[in-house]
């Protein structure tokens, strides 16, 4: 079976997004924009199940 790199690419994008959101959270905290910190925090927590979903989908396709 030909291997698919789609999952790897999607996960790489999701992880990249996760890194960016983490960095922005820290920045927002030091700029004292606390509401933004909470929003970014929630986004980052929601990203994790998304990554898990992509992984599971890819695993089941194999």
């Amino acid at each position, binding site marked *: 079976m030909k*291997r698919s*790199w789609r*999952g*790897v690419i999607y*996960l*790489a994008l*999701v*992880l990249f997004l*996760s*890194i960016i*959101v*983490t960095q922005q*959270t*820290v920045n*927002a*905290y*030091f700029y*004292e924009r*606390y*509401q933004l*910190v*909470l929003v*970014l*925090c*929630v986004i*980052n*927590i929601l*990203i*994790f199940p998304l*990554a*898990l979903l*992509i*992984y599971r989908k*890819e*695993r089941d396709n*194999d």
Partner: protein
Amino acid sequence: MERKPQERESKKESGSVPFPEDNYTHNIRKAGERKLDRRGFMKMMVGAAGIFAVSTLPWGGLAAKELAGIGKRRYEPAKIADLNQIGVGEAVEFAYPGKHDSALLVRLSDNDFRAYQNACTHLKCPVFWSKEQGELVCPCHHGFFDVKTGKPTGGPPQRPLPEIELKTEQGAVFATGVKRYET
């Protein structure tokens, strides 16, 4: 002692993996060299996303704490000066909240007082009240601050002076708190 070839063969047949063989390459560990396959790599990325998600939690907690105002510091009120000691347009130096946190109280009118921690936000030189110019002046690098707001109006400083909260009571001025030092 040299083993016979037959003996070596019989060990190969014994079924144990890896079969006991006399050579010098058995200490080269290849275990795990195929662990990081595509699926393992994807698992690792999911785990990393999880770690990033968890690592934002403390920041969220700190932000929530700031928004709820739990961590706000309380300062003991301290008397600065009696009203009759300060003329209108004059300034008094004092220290608040600690004895090394020098501060400046300016009387703008009969009932209008302003106080700031007077370490310049540029390089912490003491800031003075200039009655002639009507501004707070840092003589080190000619920094100027607006006396009404504490915001910098000229020179190198970019951040406002931290304001001290005041109250007037029983013919004297008291300091009751310090606003946050902007970073």
